[in-house]
């Protein structure tokens, strides 16, 4: 007869789960409200979502570092707290962007907001675990919610985007599972800390090299899909183009941060073990991604597609830091994404402000460059703010991403990869071309007739969000020091 299982509450350490529980509870609350009372305005749900995220943020901040909970499946280390905070900040900035003047389809459903919160919970689970199955569950929860949210935009393009993303995502999930299986086959464990120990021991066995590296390669493919590294990027521009602008901005940040944390955990220990082929593979992918994505961004005719390629190139840039395996490099990843978050979300929010339901100025694109021609004359403030975002993405000081780039390149130099630093530098110079293209259109070209009013979607909440993003981007020099010392501390206590 089976022994009754007894588990004490204390051993579960539910506090480690508190952030996710809060956000899941919030999602259920929104569903409940919808069930009980119909026809509530979207503002209610937006504000509720922000409040839930705010409590979540508090709960995450109060986590104590390096604890495990829930049968040791949940791991709260420094990088998991850091990435959860970044995810929450991005989410809090994202959700008010639904308060536009024009009405869009997805926001009329309360389910949108509850799906969104479930997605956030998924991402939080994903970063707060070193158990391959738990990571997978988090990944899939988040991804499935994300596919649905994209489709809810309810245009032909968004349905296409959703299907495309779903198919590619399924493939990525497949590779992930195969990778996990390969790792399990060699090590007999799905807990990464165990895996690392077994690998350490078995490293020198004859014939083991291929299975070990094979697992890493499969994982790398799955990660590559999600972070959209070239050559696994083909879905990115179309999906970005099909989804609403804020959603695209969100996708360029949150899923990538989460996947980056997973990559740090999985690829990190391979690199830590001194398996150089994995390191070289990551560097190669990073170099290919930033270079080719830059080339492709140059030829885009649509600003949103350009930003899609640009965020791929930024991901490649950060990916390079991952291969360096120093505390500074890992810190630079978080610093970079922390700054990138504001700038990129701001840029996409600017596109959102200019979004029309039925564009008549271009047969194919919602945001062709020509739409922004002469913006300095019609909307000087908007043009200046957009230019600030573009210059920041270029890496012109004193705007925020300059400091991110500086730190990433510095970490690269410290690790002895001068050639990589040079490639990164030259890539930044290439990237300057397409960011400047938009600046040139806004400032130096005469306005195109027929474009008429640009800021059709402008509303107070949107202006506030863009304002926050612009403020952080411009005055970032004053926040780098506290940010950096917090991040470095968090990363180093996690043992990276």
């Amino acid at each position: 007869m089976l022994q009754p299982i007894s588990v004490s509450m204390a051993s579960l350490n539910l506090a480690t789960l508190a952030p996710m529980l809060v956000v899941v509870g919030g999602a259920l609350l929104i569903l409940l409200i919808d069930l009980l009372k119909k026809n509530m305005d979207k503002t209610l749900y937006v504000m509720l979502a922000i409040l839930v995220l705010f409590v979540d943020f508090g709960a995450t901040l109060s986590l104590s570092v390096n604890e495990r909970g829930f049968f040791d499946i949940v791991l709260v280390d420094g990088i998991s707290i850091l990435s959860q905070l970044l995810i929450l900040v991005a989410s809090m900035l994202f959700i008010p962007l639904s308060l536009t003047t024009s009405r869009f389809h997805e926001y009329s459903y309360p389910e949108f907001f509850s799906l969104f919160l479930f997605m956030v919970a998924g991402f939080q689970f994903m970063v707060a675990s070193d158990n391959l199955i738990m990571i997978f569950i988090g990944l899939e929860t988040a991804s499935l919610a994300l596919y649905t949210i994209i489709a809810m935009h309810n245009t032909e393009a968004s349905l296409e985007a959703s299907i495309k993303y779903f198919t590619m995502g399924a493939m990525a999930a497949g590779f992930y599972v195969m990778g996990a299986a390969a790792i399990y086959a060699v090590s007999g464990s799905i807990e990464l800390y165990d895996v690392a120990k077994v690998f350490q021991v078995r490293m020198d066995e004859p014939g083991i090299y291929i299975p070990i590296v094979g697992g890493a390669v499969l994982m790398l493919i799955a990660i590559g899909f999600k972070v959209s590294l070239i050559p696994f990027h083909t879905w990115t521009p179309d999906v970005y183009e099909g989804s609403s602008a804020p959603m695209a901005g969100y996708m360029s940040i949150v899923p990538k941060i989460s996947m980056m944390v997973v990559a740090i955990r999985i690829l990190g220990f391979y690199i830590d073990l001194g398996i150089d082929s994995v390191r070289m593979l990551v560097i190669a992918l990073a170099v290919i991604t930033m270079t080719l994505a830059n080339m492709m961004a140059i030829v885009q005719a649509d600003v949103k597609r350009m930003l899609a390629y640009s965020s791929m190139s930024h991901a490649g840039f950060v990916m390079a830091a991952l291969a360096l395996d120093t505390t500074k490099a890992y810190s630079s990843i978080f610093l970079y994404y922390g700054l990138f978050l504001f700038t990129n979300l701001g840029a996409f929010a600017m596109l959102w402000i200019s979004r029309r339901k039925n564009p008549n100025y271009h047969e194919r694109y919602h945001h062709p460059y020509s739409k922004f021609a002469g913006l300095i004359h019609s909307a000087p403030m908007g043009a200046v703010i957009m230019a600030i975002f573009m210059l920041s993405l270029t890496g012109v000081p004193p705007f925020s991403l300059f400091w991110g780039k500086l730190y990433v390149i510095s970490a690269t130099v410290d690790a002895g990869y001068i050639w990589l630093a040079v490639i990164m530098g030259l890539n930044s110079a290439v990237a300057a071309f397409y960011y400047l293209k938009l600046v040139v259109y806004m400032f130096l070209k005469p306005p195109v007739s027929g474009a008429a009013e640009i800021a059709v979607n402008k509303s107070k909440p949107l202006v506030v969000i863009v304002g926050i993003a612009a403020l952080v981007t411009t005055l970032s020099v004053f926040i780098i020091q506290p940010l950096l010392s917090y991040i470095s501390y968090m990363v180093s206590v996690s043992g990276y």
Partner: protein
Amino acid sequence: MENILSVLVFFPLVAALLGFVVHEKSIRVYGISVAAIEFILSLWLWFAFDTSNGGFQFIEFIPLISDFGINYYLGVDGISLFIIIMATLMTLIGVIGLSVVKDLKNMIITLLFLEVAMIGVFVSLDAIVFYLFWEFSLVPMLYIIGAWGGEKRVYAAIKFFLYTFAGSLIMLIGMLYVAYVYHSVSGVWSFALTDWYALVLPLSVQKWLFWAFFLGFAIKVPMFPFHTWLPYAHGQAPTVGSVILAAVLLKMGSYGFVRFSLPMFPDASVAYITPVAIIAIVMIIYTAMVAYAQEDMKQVVAYSSVSHMGVIVIGTFAMNAEGITGSIFQMLSHGIVSGALFLLVGVIYDRRHTKLMSEFGGLASVMPKFAVIFGIMLMASVGLPLTIGFIGEYLSLAGFFKVSPVMTLLAGTSIILGAVYMLSLYKKSFFGPVVKEENKNLKDLDKKELGALVPLVAIVIWLGIYPKPVLVPIDNSVKALVSFMHEKAKTPEAKAIIKVSKSNKEAE
């Protein structure tokens, strides 16, 4: 006022932001007042400056990102003092002589932002703060060329931006490497120049770093073969853009050599004297020949400006007090003279909307005042004795003579070649009969233009005859620099070339 450097940097910034409120109608007066106040502040800096002290003065130090060793660290010495004054002066002159009508407000505000960046570059003693201002200066200039330029303005503006940006990113990697070395030696991060000076690097490392920094500076100077952006930028830029570009922005590069390359990599600098000098000589002779072949007046001035920058580089790499002092003085004279020449070309362009020399001829009889001032500036550019151009050029070449007489001889052709293309320009446009009907009724200089040009003429002649008040503080700081380099240099060749010779000291 101990924090006068911060005031100098941030006064134009505040003024630029407040400028958004000022009405379009009154913006010109606002711009002139702000630029004048800034100029007076910089003169005050000179007044308060201790000319007998060769080290950094008015130092300000505020930690910015202390974990990474980035500090708001400012200071000024004899080398940067006069470049700062020249920058504020040329901005003032540029604003006074401003002839654009379209979007005047945007232009003035942009110029003020540019002034922030220019002053910032010359006062920062922290590499990252230096880099910050250095890169930021591109943005206003991009806008000035792109918005008020000629037909191909967008192309010229982007080319200017991308060239400089690419070069300076390589320089940034160099800076990060130096910081890394400093960190591994001392255990703390620091980007402070004075800390970096103390760092003695092995020759092999110096060599790589020398080229990394060289690329950033050489593109800015611009040195052959990286000079191709400059003719475009000058050709398309509005007058005020060319004035600031030639007078101040190019000096950032040559200043960088003196501030970074020489004291940080003395051995590598000595090792590479020959290649650098050869590039500089090619630059002097080749661009002078190109200048002679131009049909457009502004292009002549643009190429002549590149050619004379070659002399500055030669002087810098003479590695002795005469040469470096001369090159810094030449930076000032080049700034004032080429700025004035661009202003003069702008004057004629405003009247006729063409810059082709073939369109003119006999201007001397129609516009006598214009012709006189043009003549003086032209002579100063060629380096006629008793003008400002002579002293810098002479000292630079005299300094380099100790290194290599043959190369000095070649570099000295700049004076002859300069005379050739400049005088031919003058002959074609100013002498002879007035051929074109349109030229017969051209207006001579008006009050605004005289107001911009006469002070420059006065300075050209004053410093040409009596350069001592400027030369002495420069010389003090340069001597300190040279003896520091001599101390620091490790290789015997470097010790031999970097001279703090006693004969020099006794001669004084």
